[in-house]
């Protein structure tokens, strides 16, 4: 056997992962985390459950515990008080999971940029404990429910 022979990289577990991701896209259970938002984004998130938007059509539903969740909807700048809680909630969420930063504050701290109580946007806090976390951003102050649905669909289609 010549020394230059190259081995094909083995695609271990690719087929196995695909059904997991496929079914994850079909049924996304969402846990809502408020890390110091002004409540505007939260109102718009609750709007998603109303008859007008009804995200249960896509199999999404709000659950009461991060252990049941597949996606975290994080709203608000992460305040110094909320950062450890956000890390804990992220650790408690079974993987694979997706983090959605909802609204301008969660994406890049918005008008609270450099505030004394702000320890960073959501992605910075999450990446501290998991550098490979899947994070999607939906900007807006607050983002419209249509924008949220479109952001979720775009994020899931690249998963």
């Amino acid at each position, binding site marked *: 056997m010549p020394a230059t022979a190259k081995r094909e990289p083995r695609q271990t577990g690719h087929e196995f992962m695909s*059904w*997991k991701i496929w*079914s*994850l896209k*079909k*049924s996304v*259970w969402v846990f809502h985390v408020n890390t110091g938002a002004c409540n505007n984004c939260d109102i718009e998130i609750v709007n998603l459950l109303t*008859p007008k938007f*009804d995200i*249960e*059509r896509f*199999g999404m539903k709000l*659950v*009461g*515990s991060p*252990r*049941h969740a*597949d996606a975290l909807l994080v709203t608000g700048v992460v305040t110094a008080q909320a950062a450890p809680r956000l890390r804990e909630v992220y650790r*408690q969420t*079974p*993987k*694979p999971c997706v983090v959605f930063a909802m609204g301008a504050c969660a994406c890049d701290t918005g008008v609270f940029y450099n505030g004394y109580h702000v320890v960073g946007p959501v992605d910075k806090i999450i990446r501290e404990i998991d550098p490979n976390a899947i994070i999607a951003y939906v900007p807006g102050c607050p983002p419209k429910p249509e924008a949220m649905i479109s952001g979720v669909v775009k994020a899931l289609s690249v998963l």
Partner: protein
Amino acid sequence: MIEAMQNLFWILIFPGFVFTVALGLVASWIVRKVSALVQWRVGPPLFQPFYDIMKLMGKEILIPQDAQRTVFLAAPLVGLAGVLLLSTILGVAAFWPEETFVGDIIVAIYLMVLPSLALILGSSASASPHATIGTSREMKLVMGYELPLVLAFIVVIIKTGGQLNLAEIAGYTPALSISGMLAFLAALLCVQAKLGFVPFDIAESETEVASGIIIEYSGALLAAWKLMHAMMLVALPLFLVMVFLGGFGTAGWPLVWGIGKYVLVLVLLILIKNTNPRVRIDQAMKFFWVYCGIALAAAVVLASIGNYYGISWL
């Protein structure tokens, strides 16, 4: 050997696992769809419960650090096994009436407690304060509804002249009398509490204790709980139909009529679920022990009188 194979077939395939899971997933879709229609929404697609179970199977299983691991892992399987046996006994009594044994209604009553006991075990092993609150509520609820449920079955046994065999009881229609109707309504509400549906979803209340008893479960273990709930959606209304509403035929129009009765009971449960707010645990206890208890004591007396003097409508 043949008999063992037949038992295995009953438990694993036809009235047992495969059939009940398939029917249960459809039934839980009916629950979500009818709830959505009541709330003027569109609701999930038909295969949504199937996607949910499949996704949960593929997720990570987290076990809390302080949890009692063995009990925490075994509890969902205990509950699943209990419902599996219950639905097998009911299915065999419905489709092979000659294969049943005397006293299977008592076995079925015991097996109906097993899922609740498994939930209590699992949640108290998970070492979470929210789960502890849920456990204590579930225990009180079980004590609350077991008494009226057993009284309701006693009414049926009196009405049928002392029958203890499900296949024999399915030949009667006790709900077509005053005492039988009272017993049916009370048993319907007890089943509502057993399923954890809204006026009695105190143990699992998502907005109060963040889904209480199953809060620490994730991944495949949560899927086991969801499967157990889906199978209970088949077994418990089926039990009510067999005991109170005259059972199923094995073929033709009686079978269609039997399925119609099952769907009727299921939709009744869903409508009660969607038109009532959650009660507190003390209200639930009072409801089951005082109101249901008095109504059922009256029903037992009426049924005995009717049985003694041969008045069938009493």
